[in-house]
């Protein structure tokens, strides 16, 4: 089976400092992968390059064996680390936009998820709370039947109850043959659902390993291992 997401020698420099420095890894379909690392380790930069929102200095990203471009955007569902939906839109407009541009978008599923959240199609996005906006964005992202999901800090800045909702939304809505890469530093919350982790440090891959393998080898949880590795 071919990897659905491959990163080769990826480097991104901002002036003299390198946000990414020769990153290499591959993710197979059906895997739920945690992209872990402290703040500034390059997680967001890596996902932005993979989503086609940033140009790398060197190296390449292949999604379904294709360099990042229009085709990869059609098969990748990306959740940014900020609110990106136009705030002048209503919830219905946002659903229509996804439906019009993404062939793999399931409108009925999205509307059902929004209904569960108590969001009406006529609700204006700028009138929603920050937490509701984030959940709505996640619902739209997860309503696609993409081959690759890239979720940037979906658990960041939300309360524990919302974290549970977000995690269950992710787990119940991504297709089994797709790969899901999720960046976070809140490892305790997601450790139990991950198949694999990629640890980033100062723009380099420190380690890529299966979660079970890592636990067996170190004799501790991924969370404890993370704290040990990134100890200040």
């Amino acid at each position, binding site marked *: 089976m071919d990897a659905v997401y491959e990163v080769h020698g990826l480097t991104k420099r*901002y002036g003299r400092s390198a946000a990414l420095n020769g990153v290499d890894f591959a993710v197979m379909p059906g895997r739920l992968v945690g992209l872990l690392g402290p703040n500034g380790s390059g997680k967001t930069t890596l996902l*932005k390059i993979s*989503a*086609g*929102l*940033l*140009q790398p200095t060197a190296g390449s990203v292949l999604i379904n064996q294709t360099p990042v471009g*229009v*085709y990869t*955007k*059609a098969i*990748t569902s*990306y959740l*940014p680390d*900020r*609110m*990106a*939906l*136009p705030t*002048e*839109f209503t919830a219905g*407009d946002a659903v229509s*936009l996804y439906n*019009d*541009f*993404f062939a793999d978008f399931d409108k009925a599923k999205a509307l059902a998820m929004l209904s569960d959240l108590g969001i009406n199609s006529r609700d204006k996005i700028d009138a929603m709370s920050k937490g509701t906006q984030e959940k709505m964005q996640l619902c739209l992202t997860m309503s696609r039947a993409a081959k690759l999901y890239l979720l940037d800090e979906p658990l960041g800045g939300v309360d524990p109850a919302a974290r549970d909702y977000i995690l269950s939304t992710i787990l119940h809505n991504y297709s089994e043959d797709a790969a899901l890469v999720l960046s976070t530093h809140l490892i305790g919350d997601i450790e139990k659902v991950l198949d694999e982790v990629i640890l980033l440090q100062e723009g380099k891959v420190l380690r890529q390993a299966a979660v079970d393998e890592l636990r067996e080898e170190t004799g501790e949880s991924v969370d404890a291992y993370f704290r040990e590795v990134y100890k200040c």
Partner: protein
Amino acid sequence: MLTKLLHYEFRATGRIVLPIAAGVLVLNVLAAVLGYFIQNTADSMPLAGVAMALLTFAAYISRLVFFVICYFVEVRQFYRLLGDSGYLMLALPVQPWKHIATKVICGTVWTLFGALFVSLCAAISALSYNAAEFSPVNPGDFWFCALLLLILVVCIAGALLHMYLACAFAAQFTQQRLLISIAAYFVIGFAGQMAALVAVAIFAFRGYKYFNSVDLTATAASLGSDNIVFLILLAVLVLVVLVDALLWALTQWFMTKRLNLA
């Protein structure tokens, strides 16, 4: 995809422009109606005269502000495209040139709409609209008028592209993007003027010998003065289109090869 992008762009900007247009229209109609009744009342109602003058002034300012909004609404959209809203819009499976085309088409349409709307409001304010004052276009002048309109459209598109290029350049930087956009706008304008000056100087020095031997009077007589004006306008149109194409190409280069969302 371009049609869909245009649909959402007009929807998003229409929600800003149209309510303001409605407000400006109401203000101008009110100023016109009250102005019609409150005339020569300085002796009987001095305050009413002052209030009327202020209302008329507000109607003038509202028209000016509305036109500026029509022009800048799409510049704001483009600036936001390279910021937070780009995290969704640029992640759509759409080629970058379609995003630029959407912003150019939408911006040009709103600017033309603003100009027409302001003219309508001015006519209402004056309460002097008379269809007879507008002479119909002579069928013989149709192509001439069409060419002038086309030049106007490509000039508006060029002015917008100039601003988009400044925004796209500023998006290379992680901080102070707005300030850099403004500075880049003036630098690009200055560079364009210098390039035009150099091109004209080269053209004048190189073409001097050729044009010196051409009998312009005889040429004008043989072609007809109308045709010469038409040809000159055509040359202006081609020149503006070339400048627009250059601005577009540079903007697209920044958006494809140097994209750097903050």
